[in-house]
């Protein structure tokens, strides 16, 4: 007998999400047979940028998200620099990578400890960590107490990683240092030394606390090495340019389909948007999104989310650390709940170990900014990677003002609703087959959803993948 279980709010993620899962017995085991994820907040950033000075896009779009504001600053700046076009001083390229790298690490630590861990362990026995579903607890006693201590230590590590980023960025979150033409902060030797010192502290935390804890939890909940696989279809745009032309990337872009052994290059022309199950006007469904304005429509027959459904060659794709690390050949253990946590931790470690080399490239006192003039007419895209996955900003400038702005966010891919073919989004698919022992406390559902690290403020701000006849050359 199928039962619909609703979790609203899904807590411990960024933004507003509701999950409705249908639970029924399959081969005698109660499990999810269907899932619907609803982004329950509409922001409308795209239309709100129209008419503004394009050079302010990095400042404004960072406010799409306060956990991952840096990648939005980067993507906006990249789009503007493609629009001009212009090259930025080498110092600026390196500073952006350093700050973005720190932002990734901050986000990943926060995600495992503050957002995910309490699906597996009891927290401190007081609000906001009570009430808590007290079910399927396999980590208790001293082990549980140790992880609670690590939760508190992680808050310190998150604070310190934000400080590390702010050494150059001025402030976290929402750094004013990201501008078209480069970066505002001229680095000093003291700043380089401070960033390096923080890096060492954070590297210790990652190696001695975060990475071992991910493995510890996975060992106690081994079935989640298979659960939550989803489509097994991965996507990355690539990010962290390693040279002035942006040809070499620290994380390469690519596409890997279910069962694929090799990643294929990705092409932005293959990206489409679908709105059949989203609260937007159906009239835009078959138009090139970059040329149309999509109006919010609520209520709407069949729609259940403020997220649209980005699809690649018509297929849903997962994006994020697991996608990046797998496509880049750095992680090949599989696709599951724990693989996402492991890949995220491995990515944080990979970044922290790379930061010192980047620091060595900084030339204290030298230029960070080359004068940028907003073009009168231009169209360009800025593509990068955010902690949660592939991120793109598309911009059209007319008469020197923003005429059109759209953002493709990673969570829009991951948490998308069904598309025009009624094909579920990646998390909706990943939930199918998840056992639910107690429909009053469906913690198993939280474990799968949280493994994707959803960020809904990013996703619901009207994300439309751009569509263009030109290939995007990074």
């Amino acid at each position, binding site marked *: 007998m199928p039962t619909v279980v609703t979790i609203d709010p899904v807590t411990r993620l960024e933004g507003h999400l509701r999950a409705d899962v249908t639970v029924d017995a399959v081969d005698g085991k109660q499990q999810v047979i269907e899932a619907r994820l609803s982004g329950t*907040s509409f922001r409308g950033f795209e239309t709100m940028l129209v008419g503004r000075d394009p050079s302010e896009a990095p400042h404004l779009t960072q406010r799409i998200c306060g956990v991952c504001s840096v990648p939005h600053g980067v993507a906006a700046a990249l789009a503007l620099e493609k629009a001009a076009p212009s090259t930025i001083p080498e110092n600026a390229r390196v500073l952006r990578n350093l700050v973005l790298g720190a932002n990734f690490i901050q986000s990943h630590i926060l995600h495992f400890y*503050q957002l995910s861990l309490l699906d597996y362990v009891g927290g401190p026995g007081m609000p906001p960590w009570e009430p808590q579903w007290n079910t399927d607890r396999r980590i208790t006693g001293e082990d549980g107490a140790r992880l609670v201590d690590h939760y508190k230590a992680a*808050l310190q590590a998150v604070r310190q990683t934000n400080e590390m980023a702010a050494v150059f960025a001025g*402030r976290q979150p*929402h750094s004013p240092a990201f501008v078209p033409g480069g970066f505002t902060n001229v680095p000093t030797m003291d*700043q380089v030394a401070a960033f390096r010192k923080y890096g060492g502290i954070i590297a210790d935390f990652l190696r001695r606390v975060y990475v071992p804890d991910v493995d510890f939890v996975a060992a106690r909940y081994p079935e989640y090495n298979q659960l939550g696989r989803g489509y097994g279809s991965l996507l990355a745009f690539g990010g962290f340019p390693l040279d002035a032309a942006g040809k070499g990337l620290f994380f390469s872009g690519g596409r890997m389909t279910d069962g694929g052994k090799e990643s294929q290059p990705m092409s932005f022309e293959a990206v489409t948007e679908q709105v059949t199950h989203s609260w937007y006007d159906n009239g835009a469904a078959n138009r090139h999104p970059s040329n149309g304005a999509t109006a*919010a429509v609520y209520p709407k027959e069949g729609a259940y989310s403020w997220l649209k459904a980005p699809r690649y060659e018509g297929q849903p794709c997962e994006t994020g650390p697991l996608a990046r690390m797998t496509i880049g050949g750095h992680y090949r253990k599989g696709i599951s709940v724990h693989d996402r946590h492991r890949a995220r931790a491995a990515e944080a470690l990979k970044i922290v170990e790379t930061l010192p080399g980047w620091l060595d490239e900084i030339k204290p006192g030298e230029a960070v900014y080359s004068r940028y003039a907003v073009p009168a007419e231009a169209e360009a895209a800025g593509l990068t990677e955010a902690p949660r996955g592939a991120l793109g900003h598309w911009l059209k400038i007319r008469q020197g003002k923003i005429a059109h702005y759209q953002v493709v966010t990673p969570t829009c891919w991951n948490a998308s609703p069904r598309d025009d073919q009624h094909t579920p989004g990646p998390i909706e698919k990943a939930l199918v087959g998840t056992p639910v022992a107690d429909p009053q406390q469906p913690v198993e559902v939280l474990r799968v959803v949280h493994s994707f690290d959803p960020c809904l403020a990013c996703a619901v701000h009207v994300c439309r993948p751009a569509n263009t006849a030109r290939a995007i050359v990074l």
Partner: protein
Amino acid sequence: MRISRRAFLRCCALASASLGLGPKELTDLEKALADPGAPSVLWLQGSGCSGCTISFLNYIAPSEPVDAAEVLIRSANLLYHPTLSAGAGEAVVAEVRKASNYILLVEGGVPTAFGGHACAPWSDGGREVPFLEAVRTLAEKARQVMCVGTCAAYGGISAMGANPAAVKSVSEAIGKSTINVSGCPPHPNWIVETLVPLLQGKAVTLDGRGRPVSLYGGRRMCDDCPFHGRGEARSLGERGRCMEALGCWGELGSAPCPTTQWNNRVNWCIAAGSPCLGCTDPTFPGTTSLLRQRGGGRGPGGGRGRGRGRG
């Protein structure tokens, strides 16, 4: 002999090993010793980015509470926070529903489009509750309503431009003045140094924009800025010069950033080479520009709500 609660707890912590008290028992003890009359806290998020929450979590100070964890364990009984709450779904909605004697914190603006369904923070009894309704209902019973961040206080970036979700400030949405800890984001010190006195029942003096005077009031940023009078920057990327010509808000803005600095004093916006964008101001982000225009401010309308507190 009088002993402060703090000192007693310290003794307990030291003795806990021999008493066999584990972390859970200690936190229970602290909870029991807390002033039973002190209000709890409900923290809601509307249309925003969670940047204010991340900023709060960055809190670090030399005196108690020394960090965000300590605020949550010792100073504030935080009944609900969407990003931090361990529970989900009906379990947390029940906590919100039965809350009494609380301070309401709101982060993010209040969307009012589509009958308020542009933002639904939870379902109650199978019905999606619009954020507009949640804020109004909870503000009614709240001891105080404190806005965390410029979006909640004045509309901010969440209400800019076309504003298709029809986002309003909290005070516009509830029809009452609010305590406005503005900033995009606000400095963690501003959040904690306003919340903790409120929890202790102390009055907070507000300026004409509803902001705590002790934190935001009194001085032009220029008066404390180390680059004041140090030449004029003509371009971004120059180090250590006054950026008034680039549109810096220091002359008009009042925020204590030159003295508090940011992120445990590693840096701050102006020292990082950016003109101040005036993010604590009701007009942020302006209608046409973030930057201060020659001859005055940037005009009304950037932040949708007025959000003027009356102190």
